């Protein structure tokens, strides 16, 4: 199976945008994993990143701004055979969608969450997102952003996510390998992908990231939660990329026997005689 399975239509992204590399990495990762287009579902919210489902030939669901995760887990719960991947922005995931982020980590449905984290609201032309650095000036944050950014990696670890990584769109190979691991992970996995937005983020540019990111090597142990939280807090001059935390734990479907065993829910016939028997509850 070749990359050409995932036909791309013309994108609406800006030339030079980090999203292109992310899309490429995704295609490569799917290819490495041997997934066929119809076996994969990519879910997006609304935003530049969230247009990813439009640009790849898999099943695609572009829902509401901030609401990609609930739609994704709903789909996975009823059809566990689908490989469900969320691609969406930092505003979408951590701003409008913050509540679903928190609670889907707890659910641990076997989906993968790729956040194109450009530290800005791209599609709406450059307001601060939850990850925008302090002091970043925008048309709304006229005196510079005064709210400290949230650290999605730290947050996800604190909330108990079983796979938490950071990657950089500028290093496609590394990104691809992280994507492969994330998709393979059983349960919810988060990859916060640093992505330059050439149009609206003139602070965190390609150069800015390139200068700072460094890859975690073998010596780093991603299974120690407290150490991982410490590592997650590294931000500024040096930003670690790689798998920050990893832990196998039972998924949502593992915990419910009828989801764990047997065919996907959508393939099971309805036993109407059994339902009829419930009339007994009312006599």
């Amino acid at each position, binding site marked *: 199976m070749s990359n050409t399975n995932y036909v791309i*239509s013309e994108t*609406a992204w800006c030339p030079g945008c980090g999203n292109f590399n992310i899309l490429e990495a995704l295609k490569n990762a799917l290819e490495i994993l041997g997934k*066929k*287009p*119809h*076996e994969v*579902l990519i*879910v997006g919210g*609304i935003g530049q990143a969230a*247009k990813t*489902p*439009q640009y790849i*030939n*898999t*099943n*695609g*669901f*572009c*829902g*509401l701004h901030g*609401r990609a*995760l*609930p*739609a*994704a*887990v*709903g*789909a*996975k*719960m*009823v*059809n566990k*055979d*689908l490989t469900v991947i969320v691609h969406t922005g930092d505003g979408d995931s951590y701003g409008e969608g913050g*509540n*679903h982020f*928190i*609670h889907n980590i707890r659910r641990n449905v076997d989906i993968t969450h790729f956040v194109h984290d450009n530290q800005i609201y791209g599609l709406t032309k450059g307001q601060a997102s939850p990850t925008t650095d302090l002091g970043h000036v925008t048309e709304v944050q006229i005196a510079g952003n005064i709210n400290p950014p949230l650290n999605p990696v730290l947050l996800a670890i604190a909330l108990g996510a079983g796979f938490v990584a950071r990657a950089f769109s500028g290093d496609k190979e590394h990104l691809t390998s992280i994507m492969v691991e994330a998709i393979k992970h059983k349960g919810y996995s988060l990859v916060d992908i640093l992505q330059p937005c050439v149009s609206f983020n003139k602070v965190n540019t390609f150069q800015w990231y390139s200068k700072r990111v460094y890859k975690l090597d073998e010596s780093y142990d991603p299974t120690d939660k407290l150490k991982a939280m410490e590592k997650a807090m590294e931000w500024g001059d040096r930003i670690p990329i790689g798998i920050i935390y990893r832990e196998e734990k039972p998924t949502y479907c593992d915990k*419910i*026997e*009828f*989801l764990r065993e047997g065919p996907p*829910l*959508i393939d*099971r016939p*309805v*036993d*109407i*005689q*059994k*339902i*009829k*028997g*419930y*009339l*007994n*509850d*009312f*006599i």
Partner: protein
Amino acid sequence: MDYNILIGGAAGQGVETLSSVFEKVLQRNGFKVFSIRDYMSRVRGGHNFVQIRFGDQELFSHADELDGIIALNEETVELHIGRLKADGFVICDKQVAHADDRVMALPLVEVARRVGNARVSGSVALGAALALLGIPATEVEAVYSKIFRPDIAKQNAEAALEGSKLVQPRYNLSLPVDNLSLSKNSLSLPKGGESILINGNQAIALGALAAGCKFYSAYPMTPSTSIMNYLASKMLDAEIVVEQAEDEIAAINMAIGASYAGARAMTGTSGGGFSLMVEGLGLAGMLEVPLVIAEVQRPGPVTGFPTRTEQGDLKFVISASQGEFPRMVIAPRNAEDAFYQTVRAFNLADKYQIPVILLSDQFLADSTVTIKPFDFDGIRHERYITHTVEDKPYKRYKITPTGVSPRVIPGKIPGVTVLVDSDEHDEYGHITESAEVRRQMVDKRLRKLEYLKQELQEPWFLGDDDFDVLILAWGSTWGPLAEAVSMLNSRQRTRYAALVFGDVWPLPTKLLVEKAKKAKKIINVEQNATGQLASLVAEVAGIFCDFSVLKYDGRPMSPRYIFEKVREKE
């Protein structure tokens, strides 16, 4: 012949358990039952009551006048004795102060203590009431064993038995029960099995299961929560995902995701949660993903009266969410209707790929009624799913004469992918900026609304064709209204008829126009303050009501209330 018994006390005193045992015993003795629940938004204290009306004919509504009161505290006597008939009775503990000779102060707590548990004093009262009414206590033990563990069940049954010894029979209400039609069926139903005792929410939940619903996500909200509770109780057996969401936005988006992926999916809430689902409703409309939503109304605005009833959300749900897209709104009129309409809602949602809203209310949700068991054999699951694809690549939004496009389930046809998008899109689901495509897609979606009109069920007609005044109503007011119309017509004066809408959006107008033409006067009867059905009828059919009977204090309208209010304007 019917009787009306009120059971009241503070929250936490067991009014609910006592009432449901009473109802079940009545049901198993062959009575028809209709009960309403009036409770406060609190867990302990305050005042709650259940009114159980029963008789030998089918009942559709509660009544105001009481034959008996079982009072678990003094407040109950004070609050309700005004509605007690001259020959009615009150059963209460002898500690309760009273100055009315209808009050039978019994040693309920004393007897309960003797049985070994002061907390079973309610069962002592139950036993006394049954004895007084002359209803055999034979079913009491069976009912208790259905809901309690054996030792507790035994204790309660004993308490009831002891209670029965405290009084002399005053009525003799035993019925000959024999036509156990259902027990001849595959089910083995005990005596009384020709009827089921069910409330509106249970009927919706059972309807969803019967329709093959495989996914229910919701966030708890009174008075919708019992739909989730019933479904959860069947989760493992029926293999349905019942997921408590972090909020209502998640609930509806999860359900849409599940439905997109091919499961029949549903969510449920009350008005406040529905407010949060508004954007998701539009998403189902735009993506053309089938979805069933139960909106169980309570009085608003916002938190309002959490445990009470109103029909205040009609205009809200028919126009909720930005932009224009087809939806259907069905207001079930009683528990039986709630069951069948739920099944129908799933079928229509699938057929037209639209959201369908079941607009119920607390009155219907919480009132229990005996009805004949639902007919499962007539249930058809029509999924309208395509297993082959002509166009390659697949056109999820193919323009068709009806507006409905062939639906493929993602992952089910190798080589075929399914793309949906909340932006305006072309036939493939790709984002478009084209004016022409936009026009076509709006037309396509709205065409479904036109075709949907062929499915509409005309409102139920009450009364004779030969009427003077036409009453318009919708949803759960059907029960009280049906009785009110009989009461009005039994006077042999002005003749009344009524149309009670179940399908409220799109609004069927055939019968409406036909009957309105003949009417000398038109009255709308609604459980809200602004007459929302009346304005919908004005908008859609140009028919204006002459006056309104409205109630908006959170308490359901009784037949007598409607009767009086209508008569006032004669």
